[in-house]
Structures are given as C-alpha cells and as structure tokens.
C-alpha cells in the first residue's frame, strides 16, 4: 500500500496498465516531456518512450480523432484533454464519432478508449478552467462517464475503464488532485464501473453526489448530525451507466433526497436523478427532492466560493427536506 494523492493514483493506474498492456498509449498537450500540466503522466514518456506517450499539436479534435483511429486499429488510447473546458473543439469527434461508431457500424467497428480530463471549480480558474460539463456526455448514448472522488477509486476505476470495451469519459476532480491522500494498493486492481458507493450510511436524508462534491457532502453530513439529521452519502462514481438500484434502495429507506453538483441547475444531471426517483420511488418520498447546484450563470472567477455548493449550503438543504 502507498499513500497517494488522487493525481498520483491516476498516474499509478496508467503506469500499471501500460506495463502489462502494450496497446495502451497516451497523448495530449504537454503529457510527454512535461508529464502533464498536473503531472498525471510524469515520467511515463521516459519509462515507455515517445511512441507510447507523446505530445500533440495544440488541437483537441485532433487528439480525440487520432485516438479514435488508433482505437479502431487495435490500440487502447488514453487521450488527455488538459481541461474539460477545452474539450469543445473535440465535441464533434466525441459525440458524433467516438460515441456512435459501434452503433452506426452494426458493431463492426469499435473504439475502446478513455478520455481523461480534469473538471470542476474551486481552484480560482474562472470560466475556462472550472466547468463541470458531464451532462453533455451523459446525454450522449455510447459513452460511459466515470468520476472518481478519492485516490483508491481513481486508480481502480481508471484501470477498469482502460480494460473496458466502450469509450469512457474519465472526469478527474482537479480540486481534489492534491488536497486529499489515501491508501492505494500497489499493482493492478479494479473498481467496477456502474456501481455507486455508500460512503456514509445514514437513515434520514440521502445525499447524491460525485467527484469533488463528495467531500463537501461528507462535511455537510457532519454539520447535520448535531442538527438532528443523519445523512446517507452516496458517491455515484459512475454517472453513465447509473447505479439506479443503489439510489432507489437508499431513497426507500430515507424518503428524503438532496442532490448536489457543481454544474448549473438547469438540465444538470441532478434533473435526471430527480426524474428517475420520481418515476420509481415517488411513493416513498416524504419531502420534495432538493437540488444544490451551481447557478445558471457562466462559472465566475472571484466569487466562485459563492457560486459553488459548499457544506453549509448542502446542510441548509438537508434541513429543508428534513423539516418539510
């Protein structure tokens, strides 16, 4: 076991998979010599050579389109988009091409690949280094969407994603890259994609969250305990495909739900979660579902701490559903 940060765990996963599977290749802006601007690929070019870990021209659709061609032709690319905010030039390649190739070729062509990209705010990054745009990709059939919240899951989920047969968006909460550490086993292990995790059991209110909102919800749960609400915190971990069963199980127990995400409220993934719960478990609800989300504004710079959900805001929402 080693005590690693989340970004070190990502690097560890890449190292493990590259060691035992020569098909795995990494590419992106600054991933080679510089080891990635967050150091997620530090030293990997030295270890595996320039053919397997390489810097690309500054062109995101190029990174994804080329990765797709490589995947179609037998490699297992893990392209990096430096910030999720810069993914949009590659949007066409991802949603029109990568996500649909299996379907549109009747299963004849596939492109198993993992698109790694840091997402989320709380790092003084303004509009273009802070957004949380998972909903666009969850809304695209053919893509899996995975968001780890701790070093152990980051390594295990990334290895599962690389070994999987489907293209996967692997969204890394950059706010947690170095702010948390955890025990991570040496060598390869997997964490199953499609399974949520109950990170704190509780009986009164279900908190649904992922990525950097997991520690926020854990802190909120602590705040709520003396205020008389026992929260169950569920880290969804995989947003597509969703572990619906685990969610419904919890909702049936607590009857009260708060959904927390960084992205704007309108059409955020919270809307889908709320609709699902209404479809499947409305008779168990004791209070309306409450969403704690980013505002319906572009992501701001100086006032991001007011824009983003924090523990107190979540705790207030818990109070609201608890005392409905």
């Amino acid at each position, binding site marked *: 076991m080693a005590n690693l940060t989340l970004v070190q765990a990502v690097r560890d996963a890449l190292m493990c998979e590259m060691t035992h599977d020569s098909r795995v290749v990494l590419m992106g802006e600054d991933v080679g010599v510089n080891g990635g601007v967050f150091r997620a690929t530090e030293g990997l070019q030295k270890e595996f050579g320039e053919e397997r870990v390489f*810097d690309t021209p500054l062109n995101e659709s190029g990174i994804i389109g080329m990765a797709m061609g490589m995947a179609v032709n037998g490699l297992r690319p893990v392209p990096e988009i430096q910030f999720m905010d810069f993914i949009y030039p590659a949007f066409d390649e991802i949603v029109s091409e990568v996500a649909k190739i299996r379907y549109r070729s009747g299963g004849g062509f596939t492109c198993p690949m993992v698109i790694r990209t840091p997402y989320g705010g709380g790092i003084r990054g303004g509009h273009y280094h802070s957004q949380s745009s998972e909903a666009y990709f969850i809304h695209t059939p053919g893509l899996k969407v995975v968001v780890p919240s701790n070093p152990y899951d980051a390594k295990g989920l990334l290895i599962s994603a690389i070994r999987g047969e489907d293209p996967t968006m692997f969204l890394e909460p950059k706010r947690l890259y170095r702010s948390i550490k955890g025990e991570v086993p040496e060598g390869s292990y997997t964490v199953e994609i499609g399974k949520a995790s109950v990170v704190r059991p509780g009986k009164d209110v279900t908190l649904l969250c992922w990525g950097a909102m997991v520690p926020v919800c854990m802190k909120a749960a602590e705040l709520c305990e003396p205020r008389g609400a026992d929260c169950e915190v569920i880290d969804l971990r995989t947003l597509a495909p969703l572990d619906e069963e685990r969610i419904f199980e919890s909702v049936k127990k607590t009857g009260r739900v708060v959904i927390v995400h960084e992205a704007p409220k309108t059409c955020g993934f919270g809307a889908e979660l709320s609709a699902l719960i209404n479809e499947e478990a409305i008779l168990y609800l004791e209070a309306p579902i409450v969403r704690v989300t980013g505002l319906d504004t572009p992501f*701001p710079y100086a006032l991001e701490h007011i824009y983003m959900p924090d523990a107190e805001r979540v705790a207030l929402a818990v109070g609201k559903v608890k005392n409905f």
Partner: protein
Amino acid sequence: MESETDLMKKKTKSQITVTKKKPIKPEKGLLGGSVLREDCYRIMNEDGTVDSKADPKLDKEILLKMYRNMALTRAFDERGMMLQRQGRIGFYVPSFGQEAIQTGTAATLEKKDWVFPSYREPGIFLYRGAGLYEMLCNLWGNNGDLSKGRQMPVHYSFPDIKMFSVSSPIATQLIQAVGAAMASKISKTKEVAISYCGDGGTSENDFHTGLTFAGVYKAPAVFIITNNQYAISVPFSKQTGGKRIVDKAVGYGMPGIAVDGNDALAVYLATKEAVDRARRGEGPSLIECVTFRMGPHSSSDDPTRYRDEKLYQAWLKRDPIKRLRTYLESKKLWDEKKEKVLQEELKAKLAEAVEKAEAQPLSDPMDLFEDVYAELTPQLKKQKAELLHEVELRGKFENTSEAFPL
C-alpha cells in the same frame, strides 16, 4: 474559384514588400537556434544598431511612444509576476520578450481599428490607453475590473478602446476578428481587425477556419502569429511538419511575411504595410513574428522542465527593449538620464495604481446574475432571491478555493 495559374501568379507576390524596401538579409546564424531563421525580415542588427541605408527613419514621436510602452509592458509584467509570487493575486501570464510584437503592431493601428488579442498581450492594451488601475483590478478580479471580476487575471476586456475580451480557449478570436473585419467591409467603415495567436494556436481548427474565411471574403484583417516557440511545454516542431508558419499564408490565398519579432522597427513596418493593404481593400495578410517566450507560460509553469537552455541564453542577447534603446541612443533620442526618469516614473505610476486596485472590494454576490442575458430571466430572478436569502442566513461565505494549478 481561382484557377491554378491565377494562384501561381499570386504566389510570386506572396511576400509583403515592406515600404518597398527589400528585406535585409541577416547575417548567417545571427538568429541561431533550431527554428530561428534567416528568412526573417529585420531592420536592426542583434545589438540594436541599424545600418544607415536600412534606417526607416520613423517619426520620433512614434519611436519614443513605442519605447515607453515596451518599457511599461515589461514593468507591468514584472509587477504582475511579483504580485502573484507574493500571493496577492492568484495568477499571472507574463509576456517577457514579446514586447516589440505587441507594441510594434499596436502602433500601426488607428483608434477605430479592432483588436482581438490572445492572453499574452498586455502591451497592446497599454498602448491603446487601457488604464493601469483597471488592468490591475482585473488581476484581483474585484469590482474595479471592467469584466466585474468574472474572468481570470490577464483576461482583460476594454470595449472603449476596441480591445476585445480575452478568452482562454486558443485561437477562437481569429475567426471573430474576420467577422468584425467583414462588418467593417459591409458597413464601409474602413476599420481593420487585427488578431493574435501563438505558434500553438496555428494548430487549432479555428486558425484554419479564420484564415480560410478571411481569404475567401478578402476581409480587411491582419493575423499576427507570435511564434514564441513553445505552447506551454510543447515546442514549435510539434505544431507543424513544416518549417515556417508564414508558408501557410499561400494556402489561404493571402500574402505573408516572417519578421524578427524582437525588432520593433521591422514589426512596425511589416504590420503597417499589412494594415494599409487591409484598409485599401486588398484583403488579409499573415505576419509571423519569430521570437522566444522568455518567461514561463504562466505563474504556475516551470519552464526549466522543458526549455532549451541554449536557445534561451541566445535569445537573452536579443532583448527587444534593449535593442530599441540602443537604436534610440544612436539617434540621440534617448540616454541614461531619460531612462532613469522613465523607470522612476513607471515605478511610481504602477505603485500608485497597485495600491488603489488592491484596496478595491470584490463585486457584490448579487452581481453574479447580471450580464448572463440582457435581462434577468425568471429562473435567474428566482436563484438570485434564493441566494439573497442564503446570504442573510449565513452572513459571510468562507473562501476555500485552492490555488490555481496551471
């Protein structure tokens, strides 16, 4: 559609001829380094001397204004980096070594012209009269910032001087500049739109699109490519299989020229010609300014991890400010005493503006909802009321943001 023969005929004209003088052939190896080339148009020798036959004899006022602005840009960048290192601001992007490009191009423009800058061009804002105080307020993201603290530091926006709002996504502004240029053409306002990106930016789809559209419509646009040889850590050799960015101009049907980007006179003259062409209705041009990024990509970057040190050392000798100063001194337009006065003046002006900017408070939280649309939507009104209620309930919000990592 133009026939191939038409294009071939044009090919011979694909270099901008600057004020009808022949580009001066630099001494062999003078620029040195792997991507530095002898094809660059230049007026100054490396040490700032100018051969008498080559002296363009620019107006004294312009020369001094350019020099002062380059010195101001350097002082501003130094202050920006220092404020970041002291933890007083969160982030900074210096433009060390690129002062001649910013100032030399800006000096060719009229007030009515449009500028679409990248994030490494404080000198253009300064040349066109952006207030030091307002620029510094942007670094703090406070309520004195014209974009109301919504953007990261160095992402300025100055509508009054037609300095378009800076974006982080790369090269997006090139196409927008073509649009502004086309509006000028359609409205017959004779405005020119100039846009900037780096060597990395030339790899983006938007570079291709911008130049394609400009070429097709013969837009009154000028594209300044600052080839500073690194896109964060990725060297120019990884941006194109070709040797020169200027060669791309031919493919888009526009003239182009490669210029020594540390030679303020050459940058000025080449850009002047391109701007004049555009204003005369002769269409777009591309100018590749060959230089070197003398600082980090940003305050979060450590260039010693990847930078070619020999190349860096070689470029230290070509400091654009020193070169212009030598030239001015040779013309008796500048001396040690004037320099001392200027430096003291810059220091005092900056110190005063810093003090004032740092004291400004952040915008009011309720301001978060403004400017999303022309008017608040019902949804935003609701969210605003909710936030107001929360502010009343909670009072102060704790700022738990981590430091910017890149």
